[in-house]
């Protein structure tokens, strides 16, 4: 019974393409996040949504557009993919009220060729 699930787990695509990663959580949490983990394992927050509203947007290129149709889903769409977008993207969720205790999905490894 996966708490935070992401699809797809692996994505290989060409430069210039547009791709999406989907995330769903069944924990009843109000806040969801996207993190990017680069090749050196460094984790950086990209976006945070609380109850479908954007609350954190960390200087991410506007080629990245998150969408939250409801509080259980947070999708990430990426336009015009670049080589530097290759990374593992982690979705996470947390209870309402900021604490920092996050539950992470298994990650989506994006490879841009």
């Amino acid at each position, binding site marked *: 019974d996966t708490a*935070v699930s992401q699809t797809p787990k692996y994505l290989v695509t060409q430069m210039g393409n547009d791709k999406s990663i989907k995330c769903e959580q069944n924990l009843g949490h109000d806040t969801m*996040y996207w993190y990017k983990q680069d090749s*050196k*394992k*460094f*984790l*950086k*927050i990209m976006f*945070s949504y609380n109850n479908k509203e954007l609350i*954190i947007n*960390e200087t991410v290129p506007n080629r990245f557009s998150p969408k939250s149709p409801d509080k259980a889903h947070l999708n990430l769409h990426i336009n015009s993919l670049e080589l530097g977008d290759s990374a593992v993207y*982690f979705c*996470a969720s947390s209870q309402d009220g*900021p*604490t*920092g*205790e*996050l*539950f*992470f*999905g*298994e*990650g989506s490894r994006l490879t841009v060729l």
Partner: protein
Amino acid sequence: AQSVSQHNHHVILSEAASLELGCNYSYGGTVNLFWYVQYPGQHLQLLLKYFSGDPLVKGIKGFEAEFIKSKFSFNLRKPSVQWSDTAEYFCAVFDYKLSFGAGTTVTVRA
């Protein structure tokens, strides 16, 4: 902006050895502190957390961490590691967002 520094990039040790990973953060105000662990090929999991109270916190799998406010530190310890503790360990600090350190790769040799 909050910054988190982890002292060790890669630690290699033998089973039954003791482990200590250093973590320092920059912000002087009230923060929540965490250690997350990422086992090979898996997602991040919470190892332990500190919000307030006893500065010595115990987590899962025999890990503990000590918050020393005067040193802005939150070091992780385990008295006796096992092969299964091989993983990436991340210190993280929450003020309005969760910021991670660069991570420490721990390799435990059988």
